[in-house]
């Protein structure tokens, strides 16, 4: 599939997504998706299934909007500050409590540090129960700056919402990029940090709510900071060129031994596939190989990895196995993140009992 045909496929998929969003979010969201496509977004496809909590966005060229960072280094809120990432969206974790894989990205911000809206928008939800650092704010962001929110929802968690009470932040408030929406809560249950998460709905808690990747908001960021947004997602930025499939994959963690924030390469990235709609699922003996070390970019030749012939359709998903590190011991039971993304500890082998889960998760490619 060349780039032109990929974009056509992507556009088709995008139209499917538009339909979903029309139901979910109404007319304004439709306009937002049109804007995304016009800006070069490749596609957005639902991976809804048995227990999925992620809504996959595809593509190396997708850019929802160039958002600002939620941390700033000056009192006017103009100087962006790239807080190190302690854990990424869809990253397998070794935690006693909390979501696994991680349902958002953790930024190493300080207790009491101001949290700014990353784009303008309207506040749709405020939670002010601070007993376990679970205060949060959801903002429906205005991604094109026209003054109207576009159905891109960001939830800012573990914060003390600005001025909880009569004169503070309220649902319905319009905020700008220099508006403080809260401060990072003090240590109670977790170390102080900001958990930032792109969600599919204006209010949290609904079983139908999904998490979306964050990298599409920070494609402009440098390799020294958030690596084109890939610091925020365990697996991101897929790209197909000919029969080659590219992915960016690594874990992010704080390392108390070195006092550094590390980008840790996965132990391996497996490709699971079937040939043709009626084929049998299996794992390829071929693994993704490192293609670009600076950006942690991996690739695999789908023809070589699957043995499929030219013109055949192959259905694939990838499982990136997290390597052990100081915060992720060898004893960790759950070690994989999937692309396309899934949530609630899906089986690495989605077809162990039935092919239905793998069928729903997979993406289709036509071998060239």
């Amino acid at each position, binding site marked *: 599939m060349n780039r032109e045909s990929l974009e056509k496929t992507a556009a088709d998929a995008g139209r499917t997504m538009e339909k979903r969003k029309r139901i979910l979010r109404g007319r304004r969201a439709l306009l937002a998706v049109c804007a995304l496509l016009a800006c070069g977004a490749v596609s957005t496809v639902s991976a809804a299934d048995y227990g999925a909590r992620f809504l996959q966005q595809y593509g190396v060229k997708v850019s929802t909007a*160039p958002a600002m960072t939620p941390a700033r280094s000056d009192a006017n809120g103009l100087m962006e500050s790239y807080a190190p990432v302690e854990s990424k969206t869809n990253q397998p974790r070794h935690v006693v409590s909390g979501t696994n894989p991680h349902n958002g990205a953790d930024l190493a911000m300080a207790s009491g540090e101001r949290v700014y809206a990353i784009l303008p928008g309207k506040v749709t939800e405020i939670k002010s129960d601070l007993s376990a650092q679970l205060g949060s704010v959801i903002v429906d962001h205005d991604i094109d700056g026209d003054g109207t929110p576009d159905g891109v929802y960001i939830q800012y968690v573990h914060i003390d919402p600005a001025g909880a009470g009569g004169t503070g932040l309220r649902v319905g408030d319009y905020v700008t990029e220099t508006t403080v929406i809260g401060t990072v809560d003090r240590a109670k249950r977790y170390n102080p940090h900001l958990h930032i998460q792109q969600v599919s709905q204006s209010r949290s808690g609904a079983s139908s709510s999904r998490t979306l990747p964050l990298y599409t908001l920070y494609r402009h960021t440098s390799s020294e900071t958030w690596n084109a947004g890939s610091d925020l997602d365990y697996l991101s930025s897929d790209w197909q060129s000919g029969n080659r499939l590219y992915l960016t994959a690594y874990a992010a963690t704080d390392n108390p031994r070195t006092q550094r924030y590390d980008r840790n390469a996965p132990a391996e990235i497996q490709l699971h596939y079937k040939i043709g709609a009626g084929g049998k699922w299996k794992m390829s003996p071929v693994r993704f190989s490192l293609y670009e070390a600076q950006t942690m970019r991996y690739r695999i030749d789908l023809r070589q990895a699957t043995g499929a012939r030219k013109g055949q359709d192959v259905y694939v998903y990838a499982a990136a196995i997290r390597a052990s590190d100081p915060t992720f011991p060898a004893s960790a039971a759950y070690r994989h993140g999937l692309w396309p993304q899934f949530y609630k500890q899906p089986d690495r082998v989605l077809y162990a009992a039935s092919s239905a889960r793998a069928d729903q998760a997979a993406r289709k490619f036509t071998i060239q």
Partner: protein
Amino acid sequence: MGKRLKAASAGLLILAAVSGSALAESDVWPQAAQEPGRLAVLQETKLQLPGNADKRKAAASIDPASGRAAVRAGVRAAEGSTGTFNAKLNADGLNETLTFRYTQSAGRRVPLPSPDLGYELHPLPDGQVLVEYASSLYKLNPDTKTLSPFLKAQTGSYRQGAGSSSKMIVWGKRASISPDGNVLLYWTTRSAAVSGREDGENWIKDLRTGEEKKVYGAGYTLLGWDTKNRFYLDLGDEGVVQVDRTGGSSAKLVTGSSVSAVSGTHLLSQTADGSLNLRDLSTGRVRTFRGGGLNHLRAASASYEGRYFAVINAPDRSSRVSTLILIDTKTLDSRTIAEPAGSSILGISWADSRHLLVQVRNRTTQAESTYTLEVEGEAKR
């Protein structure tokens, strides 16, 4: 810098006394200097901050196979050229080469703040620069291109890299220099190795003696310093405190959450829609400002030496529409200015005591630009 800004700006603003619910004016924008992009002035250096267009270019330049971007969205000098140099950091277990951007000013190499390069910068009084990197502070000599540790590796019972904690320790960051240049304020979590608490503490380093000590027990956001070299912390819902840097004594000046800003002489704070308080930091006298269409503050800004505050006001909290209100701290005269036609105000900052930079975005084209408004001290009644 001040002369250059004055020459560039034609919009001279004379504040008028507030009378009831003043209507917002909008005729100041055609007379003000307007420059493309997002501008800010830090330490007398005018900067072009990466804006929407720069970021889109960087995103579009990514090679889809390698993931590498050909274009970087970074800070650059708004006037004069921007160069780069490298400096090696061999300390604290680090062996790295950092790249710095700089511009030339008065024959000196002035490093530019470049968060996109992975660190924060803070100028020191001696012309050198502090670099926040890898959870500590390092001193950069821009002339010799050398980096060296700045904080003591051991203070009291705390020792950097002791390795006794299972948590990461921030040895020093969020640095700020007092106006008299004698003290560095920084934030650290070094006590977490002992206490297990990770909320952090504010410490100072006496730049004359090298002594380092804790002065206030929590993190929070630094609003600024006053002319007596006291600093002000925004504690979120716990208010705003004034901290004496020498003894560490503190006083709560605002109770509860507020939108606040500090100049060298005044603290502005809003705790209730429709009014704001201005505290004279020398006398403690508090005056209340109302009118001018003031409702809910989205942001506030002050220059250190200036007598004026600028605030972004939301006449209707649920609407995207903002007004800019300029307030004279001496007279409480004010002027209320509507947004430029078709544009939204993004942010405000002071270039110096008289020149306000207003960043705006066109709602149709998304083009960003910065207006320079000159605020006149001769208030008219």
